[in-house]
């Protein structure tokens, strides 16, 4: 097994871990991490498979660059929504506490 193929297999494992994580993990921040793992796994499969003959291939490299940027965009959006949700939960709970008091 060439090391490129090895990394493709590793990518497959990481993707699987990521999928299982997104389904099983309840904490939303951790889900975001799991989603990022999915992406990284897919990138590894893409480059590893493409280069399993041993030669470097610029086309998947460019695709992965695009993918990384898309992933960070999605992650930032997810974190923003998560924080907003958290913030609103906070203020709501404070409100109820004031009501109780």
């Amino acid at each position, binding site marked *: 097994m060439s090391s490129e193929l090895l990394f493709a297999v590793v990518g497959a*494992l990481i993707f*699987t871990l990521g*999928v299982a994580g997104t389904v*099983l993990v309840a904490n939303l921040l951790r889900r975001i991490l799991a989603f990022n793992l999915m992406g990284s796994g897919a990138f590894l499969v893409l480059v590893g498979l493409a280069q399993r003959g041993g030669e470097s291939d*610029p*086309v998947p490299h460019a*695709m992965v660059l695009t993918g990384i*940027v898309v992933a960070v965009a999605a992650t930032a*959006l997810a974190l923003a929504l998560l*924080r907003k949700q958290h913030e609103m939960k906070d203020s709501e709970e404070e409100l109820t506490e004031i009501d109780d008091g």
Partner: protein
Amino acid sequence: MKRAIVIAAALVFGGLLINAIVDLPSSPVDLRIAVADNMANSGVSHPVTAVLLNFRGYDTLLEIAVLLLALIGLMAAGPMLPPPPNQPADALLQKLARIATPPVIVVGGYLLWAGAFRPGGAFQAGAVLAAAMVLLHLSGLLSAWNAQLLPLARRVILVGGFVLFLCISVALLAAGSLLQYPPHQAGLLILLIESGLTLSLAAILAGLFLFLSRDNGGAP
């Protein structure tokens, strides 16, 4: 119960996937040849940059759109906490940031320029510059941005690179199709686009952090 099912399914799926990967015969199409054949007309000598900004430049155009719209989405939905109190920043960190910033900018510039013939380019350069901005912010030298009160200049910088890219792509439509560079001007146009992108990418990537950040110097 659900856990067991998911884990079993994941094991089956992973097994199938690995089996499929290991068994895969070699691919019938080899784009490396096509890339190599067309490098001379691409305007750059680094293959990845050629793919990213010329052969598949359309992907990159749309990808910047993704980044931009994620930033807008983040501005639209992000938390709107009251501005944090001005904490006294760590003096050491400030000094470090002051020292580090100029070389980082130089590195960014180098990466941008290098992209034409070796690893590097707008993304990497923009990311490095963004990192510098984040560092400046964390050391208290650059305040967080307010998504609700965004000055016009900053908005222009955010979208400038994308607009430049879009305009050049459309202008080239006159040559026959979107983003069809004339071979002789390709190098120059790509450098132009990358320069614009570097600035905007730096601003957008930093913006992903600065619109949300409420930590003046207090990273955990």
